[in-house]
Each structure stands twice: as C-alpha cells, then as structure tokens.
C-alpha cells in the first residue's frame, strides 16, 4: 500500500468519525482532537478504524503519535514496513 493510500485511509476513517467535518480544512500538522473536537470515544474509534483497515496493531502507548494526520500517516507507514 502506498503512502498516498495510507493517507486516504486515514481521511476515510476520520470521515466516518466526524461526518459533519469538512476534512479539506484540516491542518494535517495540527492535533485532530482540537480541530475536530474529538472525544476519547471518537479517538478510540479512529484507532480501531485504522487497525481494521490496515491490519496494523497500535499499542495504547503509541496513541499520542496519531494525534495529527501527518503523525498518523508517518506512524502507519513506519509500522507497515
């Protein structure tokens, strides 16, 4: 899976958690929780959605690395290889 495809997957999963959000306006370098007003259940759904689509196990200790879109993509690209 290419890096672009992982980026698309991250956006797709976000779109399910925050269907009302306009993902085009998100700053990929900034924390998602604040930008999308995610709560802890939303964030867990985000992590689980990524796990289910990409088959990558994400330990709880690594949740912080998924805070932004850029962070999540970098983490998932590294975890996949």
């Amino acid at each position, binding site marked *: 899976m290419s890096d672009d495809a992982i980026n698309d997957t991250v956006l797709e999963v976000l*779109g*399910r*958690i*925050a*269907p*009302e*959000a*306009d993902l085009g306006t998100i700053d990929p370098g900034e924390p998602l929780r604040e930008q*999308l*007003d995610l*709560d*802890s*259940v*939303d964030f*867990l*759904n985000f*992590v*689980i959605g990524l*796990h*289910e689509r990409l088959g990558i*196990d*994400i*330990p*709880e200790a690594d949740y912080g690395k998924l805070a932004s879109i850029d962070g999540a993509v970098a983490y998932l690209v590294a975890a996949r290889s």
Partner: protein
Amino acid sequence: MYEFRMPSLGADMEAGTLSRWLVAPGDRVERGDIVAVVETVKSDIEVEIFHGGVVEELLVREGREVPVGTPLARLRTEVAEPGEAAEPAPPEAGPPAPAPPLPRVPAPVRAPPATARVHASPVARKMAAALGVDLATVEGSGAGGAILKADVERAVQSPRKEKAARPERPERPAEVAAPASPPPAAERAAGMRRAIAAAMARSKREIPHYYLANTIDLSHALGWLERENLARPVTERLLPAALLLRASALALHEVPELNGFWQDDAFRPGPGVHLGVGISLRGGGLVAPALHDADRKSLAELMTALRDLVQRARAGRLRSSELTDATITVTNLGERGVETVFGIIYPPQVALVGFGTIVERPWAEGGMVGARPTVTATLAADHRASDGHRGALFLAALDRLLQEPEAL
C-alpha cells in the same frame, strides 16, 4: 390491525418529519424492526416498530412533518383468532425473511423492494437538499454505498449522464417536493436550541433538584485499566468511561429510586438500567441516547456499545428506542476539562450523574499525602423521588465499586 404512529422521541419533541420509509405495503415486519427514518430537530432517528405484522398502507408521505401521535401506517397484525388456523404466509413476492434468532438485535434493515433506500450521511443529505440534487442519482462511495458529502460535490460538478435514463417516478405528486427538503442548518440549530430550552425549562420549573458531589480516588481503577489494556487487542481496549458507566449501573441496583421516571405524581421504577449517555453534537446541542441494560453488560460489551452509540450519534443514525428508553442520564463533561458537573435532570427522569475530568490531586490517606488520579462524581436528583441520604449512598456505592475494578 395496528396503527404505527409518530413516536415521541423525547420530552422535547412535538413533531417530526417522516424523511424516509424503509418498508412498503406488503412488507412483513417484526417487533423491533426499523421501519422509517424520522427527522427531528436533533437528528435523523431510525424508528423501530413495536408490533409485528404486514404493512397495509402508508398514511404519511415522505417529507411530511406531522405532530407526535399522528398515524403513519396501518398494519395487519397476525394474532390468530381462536379456532382459526394461523394465517398463511402472505402471498406477495419478495425475499423470504429468515426467522430471526431471539432476542432480536435491531437488525440492519433489508432493502425494501419498492422504495429504494438512499443511504446518505446527514451532511450529504443537507448539501443535496441545498443544491437541489436528487440523492437517488448520486453514486455513493461510503461504506455500503452510502452517499458522502464528496459524492454530492462530485455530482454537482459533473452532471451524470449514465443515470439520466432512470425511469421517472410520475406517481410522486409535486407537492411532496417542497416540504421534503430538510430545514437549513441554521433553522435546524435553532430548532435544537428551542427543544433543549423547553426540556430544561420544564426541568427547572418542575423538578426540585438536590445536588451531591464526591471526589473519588481512581488510582486502582486506572492502574487496573492500564494493565488490562496492555493485554487486550486494540478492538477490545477499554476507556475510563466504560468503568464509570459500569460502576454507575451497578450502584443503581443499590439505590433503585434514582433509576426511573416521575410520572403522574409518583415514581415509576425503570424497566431496566438504561443509561442515557450525554453526547455533545459538534453541530451544536446534545443528545443522550440510551445504553440499554448497562448493568447486564460486561465492560467489553459496554465499551463496544458505547463506541457504536457515539459513532451512530455522529452519523445521525440513532434508533427511536435509544431516544426514549433512558432511565437516568450519565454525562461526562470531564472530556472538556471541567472538574465538576452540576446536572439538570432530563424529565421525566429523576437523576443525572456527572463525571468531571480525571485529574491528579493531592490525596491524603493513612496520614500520608500523595498524588492520585481522581474524578469528581456528582448527582443531581429529584427530591420528589429520593432524599439526599439515598443519593449519598449512591455516590458511596460508586466509590466502593470503583475501588475494585477487577470485579466490575
């Protein structure tokens, strides 16, 4: 014969718009099936039916707003008369509905043969209405072919030809078109504000609230949770909220007069422990759908149910029973950093449990002071139904249960 009526989806609802029928005349439905989508000022609600039978006639067209209680459809019910053979299966065509196993989990609705169901996110729906796009002509790229906002945008940019050959539906009277468009976002937000205002004003007018608070040491609970999550796959991990909800549900067994309704000048115990979970909607406003039978769910089941509930609240896919069945509300404004929640009871419920942020505080125990994670739990309760002493017992039970997380 059974008349399916516009349900009241909460104390603050007076009318609803029937946005979609998910059944057509001739369809057989079972108790608990989702038969229609009703749009309220709060969100789109999937409405379940409480009687099985065969749909005879739909009485209200899609797009119509009608008051609560208005008959929406007539069903032929199938109670066999004494001495009469059970009615044979109806002759109409269509896929045979497999007998569902009991207990019936609200099943995904099978696509009715006649009226094709258009699956779309609330945002896509609003946008389509605003732009005058017929959703039936839009190709969905979401899960299960659901139409997303981007699909509507694409449809606007590139008028499709391939689908233009769709047969018209001439039987649709033109008058349906106008009321079918959902209210614009601003109007909907105003409606939501009015609904919340009505319910909360009624609460403050009618309910003599009393308030109690207790700060609870969570070091055992969170320590246990951390160890537990290390061993759990990501799909089964728990959040502190699951522990708080589970402990609340169990504590209600000890003080049942907090779980139920004040109706006709008397307390009516709830038929189960259905925790209304406060979820703030990012478009504004809030909903508190029920987590059914929270006291009978394991932590893992509760967590799964909570994730599902939040996801569906976001997507505007809550079910009618979830909006009407809550026997008490639990709110977790702590997510937003507040320490203490002073709740307003949602009538006709008689109590609201609030949890603040989990914060480290200096904690004295056995003559020693240390830093511990703590949460302030509050209870707002209806003094007509219970007294402060009983409320205090509830908070004490909550504290005790949270000190033994492995037993939750």
